[in-house]
């Protein structure tokens, strides 16, 4: 589509024709194809090699395209998709418990609080079947029943058992599957892999994305790479909160710099707070560790009924415990969606019923389950998670309940994309968590892995042909084009500026302070005064960052982790402001975005569908100044209802 114009423009998601269940088929028939013999004449850059990026690179390579894949890791196997523990959904209905593509679609739209695009979500549910088939064929060792068939379990937001899992390491096993598929293509020569390279800019010529500029993290060398199309698969931006469940190097630089080159940024305020993380224990903590949501299958969540009760958990009798999720939401109980469970935990702690040394957690108790099923069964289901908890806290969860608290986990916002996963810059695609796509205002458990792989294995390899086919015979823009040189110069200037500053504080210090502001004002609960204060504080701290940063060593021609971090934190500063601005404009509560001004008498979020049933997509003018564009969300197949889990 053409470059969007000024404020008030309406975006077109380019939803295909026909009834919902035919849209993807119709689209595959309607879009242009690239003849197999011609695919090798196209070069595609894939940035990021997690679930989405590696599966895309592998599949594009299999199809015959020339793929240049970039990652800042030393190996693609380290991408943070590897840390996803719980599982991946698929509407296989292997258990005959009433599941179907339609139900997975419905649960996902409802779970996302009716802020996702129906056509995309339906396609995701359709493709979920093939993802499991593909992963099993690759040798992903999913859990099995004794009869040899695949085992499943339940996740939050669903009343069927559709989550496939590989112990508590599902993300790792799925990532290794696509990493291996990609390395097979590296060996075959269709994919060229560039490790320890960080993308620092997208180059746009005549309105099209034509290449990227990257920095070799070991030598500091800055190089340009051109291609017919570029796919960003660089993950989410939860690390804008500093403390999150993301890997410490996860960052927003690739998508943010693409945004500054014209790609719209959609729904930045939709960040998911995951309910089951280990609470913060000390000031220098660098990250929060998530305990899989699957634990809520057997764990019961409670706090002492009386505020200030600081007895050890095993001394609190059953009738003096408040199993508050089971009390408030009897139908879903401990398996309510993540945003609901998170807010409930925050309320308990705000009522001074928090547990643990810092009174900053709630109990996730396996006592009943161990009594009912035996220790061995629990160890078989969750053993490695229990071990991880014990490593981190020093407590044995077989003996005492775990302590959990919500933490920033996954971002539903990201680059705006149409049905083809194309951003508003032609030739530039965003897949996986890097786009805003399918999750709406909240993400159901076990749906992120599904989306990353659907995008990478099945969608982008198909839709990218529609853009490439008319470009047959056109060579990529040469990297000595002035736009490449301009990008390279701008990157060098920024690096030189960081090094020349010689201030007093590290990028890590600024990042921690920024995170405190974002968490306090744009975290689990938001309010107009809080957000306005947040914007002011972010701007103030950003000014200090620009004047008082200290980067050591003072050279870019070597591995310099402080310098890498400085660039990422600079981008987080700008993004954090947009997160607050987006949260301010959305005068409603939806999913992970809870505005205190918009809640029911029971404290449940209050959507305002007549006014806010749209995707908010922001066009960049300059830092602090964005134009709002809207994509109207129309719900033809699901009725917009108040989300209830009672």
């Amino acid at each position: 589509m053409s470059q969007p114009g000024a404020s008030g423009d309406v975006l077109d998601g380019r939803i295909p024709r026909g009834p919902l269940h035919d849209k993807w088929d119709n689209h595959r028939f309607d879009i242009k194809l690239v003849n197999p013999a011609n695919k090798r004449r196209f070069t595609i850059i894939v940035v990021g090699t997690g679930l989405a990026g590696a599966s895309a690179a592998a599949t594009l390579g299999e199809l015959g395209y020339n793929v240049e894949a970039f990652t800042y890791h030393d190996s693609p196997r380290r991408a943070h998709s590897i840390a996803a523990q719980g599982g991946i959904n698929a509407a296989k209905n292997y258990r005959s418990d009433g599941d179907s593509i339609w139900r997975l679609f419905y649960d996902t739209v409802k779970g996302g609080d009716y802020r996702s695009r129906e056509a995309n979500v339906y396609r995701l549910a359709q493709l979920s079947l093939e993802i499991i088939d593909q992963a099993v064929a690759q040798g992903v060792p999913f859990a099995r029943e004794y009869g040899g068939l695949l085992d499943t379990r339940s996740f939050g937001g669903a009343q069927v058992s559709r989550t496939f899992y590989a112990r508590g390491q599902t993300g790792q096993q799925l990532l290794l599957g696509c990493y291996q598929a990609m390395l097979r293509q590296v060996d075959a020569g269709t994919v060229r892999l560039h490790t320890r390279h960080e993308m620092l800019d997208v180059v746009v010529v005549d309105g099209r994305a034509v290449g990227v500029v990257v920095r070799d993290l070991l030598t500091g060398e800055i190089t340009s790479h051109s291609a017919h199309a570029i796919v960003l698969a660089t993950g989410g931006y939860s690390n804008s909160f500093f403390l999150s469940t993301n890997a410490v190097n996860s960052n927003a630089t690739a998508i943010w710099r693409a945004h500054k080159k014209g790609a719209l940024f959609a729904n930045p305020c939709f960040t998911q707070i995951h309910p089951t993380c280990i609470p913060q224990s000390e000031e220098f903590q660098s990250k929060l560790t998530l305990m899989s949501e699957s634990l809520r299958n057997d764990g019961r969540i409670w706090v002492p009924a009386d505020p200030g009760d600081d007895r050890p958990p095993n001394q609190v009798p059953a009738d003096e415990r408040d199993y508050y999720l089971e009390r408030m939401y009897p139908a879903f109980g401990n398996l309510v969606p993540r945003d609901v469970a998170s807010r409930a935990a925050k309320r308990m702690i705000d009522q001074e019923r928090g547990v643990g040394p810092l009174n900053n957690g709630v109990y996730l108790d396996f006592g009943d389950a161990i009594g009912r099923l035996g220790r061995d069964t629990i160890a078989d289901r969750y053993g490695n998670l229990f071990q991880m908890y014990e490593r981190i806290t020093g407590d044995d969860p077989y003996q005492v309940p775990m302590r959990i608290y919500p933490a920033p986990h996954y971002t539903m916002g990201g680059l705006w994309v149409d049905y083809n996963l194309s951003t508003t810059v032609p030739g530039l695609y965003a897949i996986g968590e890097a786009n805003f796509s399918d999750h709406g205002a909240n993400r159901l458990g076990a749906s992120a892995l599904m989306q990353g792989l659907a995008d990478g294995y099945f969608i982008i390899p198909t839709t990218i042909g529609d853009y490439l086919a008319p470009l047959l015979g056109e060579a990529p823009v040469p990297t000595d084009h002035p736009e490449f040189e301009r990008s390279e110069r701008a990157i060098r200037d920024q690096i030189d500026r960081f090094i020349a500053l010689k201030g007093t504080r590290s990028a890590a210090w600024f990042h921690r302070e920024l995170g405190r502001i974002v968490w306090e004002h744009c975290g689990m609960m938001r309010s107009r005064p809080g957000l306005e204060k947040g914007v002011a504080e972010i701007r103030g701290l950003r000014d200090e960052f620009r004047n008082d940063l200290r980067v050591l060593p003072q050279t870019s021609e070597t591995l310099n982790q402080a310098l890498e971090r400085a660039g990422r934190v600079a981008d987080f500063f700008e993004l954090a402001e947009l997160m607050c601005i987006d949260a301010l404009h959305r005068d409603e509560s939806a999913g992970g975005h809870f505005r205190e001004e918009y809640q029911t008498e029971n404290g449940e979020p209050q959507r305002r569908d007549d006014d806010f049933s749209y995707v908010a997509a922001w066009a960049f003018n300059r830092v602090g100044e964005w134009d709002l564009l809207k994509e109207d969300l129309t719900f033809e197949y699901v009725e917009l209802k108040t989300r209830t889990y009672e």
Partner: protein
Amino acid sequence: MRITVRVWRQTGPSAPGRFETYVADRVSGEMSFLEMLDQINEELISDGDEPIAFDSDCREGICGSCGMMINGRAHGPLTATATCQLHMRHFRDGDEIVVEPWRASAFPVIKDLVVNRSSLDRIIEAGGYVSVNTGSAPDANLIPIPKDVADRAFDAAACIGCGACVAACPNGAAQLFTASKVAHLDMLPQGQAERYSRAADMVDVMEQYFGSCTNFAECEAACPKAISIDFIAMMNRDYLKAQFHIRRKRQV
């Protein structure tokens, strides 16, 4: 707690290295080992000194980025624990800790504690996969896999590719890494078609980079995922069989 750390500092692959001593005096037992290094780095930067370079990412024991020799042991004193999951409560106030990069000729030092482990990826490229193009897979439940087989394959698949096995091995061998992948795929029906070529190709590439296995079993002791050396026997058996299979294939 007050902890003294002697850290290997090396500015580049060909530069000489040396130990430097630093003191962290606000260490809490809840901190991970890497968070203690973060704290030292913050202080180094505020004193105008260059921070210690080390790799880490997920900090929850699964990405395999981190890893260093701590008092001569890969990933430190605990068994089945990656460095990021090692917490300072396992050390005592006043302890002196020696920290070095992985020691293996196949892993050249890049800087300080950061080493180049890309030779592990070369082994996977040689055949550590099932050749199946996207979209051509049959229904997932078409081939039942007994639970104990799937579980055993998973035990092998749990490898995080950190390189501790190589660093702990007196010979700098990568048998445990390679065997975990070979065994994972060789145990599953999906892996049978390429079973022998996989074992042969991966072992051949492994031997280009790494030392020989002489059954010290230090790798198993150092592995943060407690992967068993039994898988090495499985790999060796398949490698041996592969010599006959491959010869037969060539004769056809």
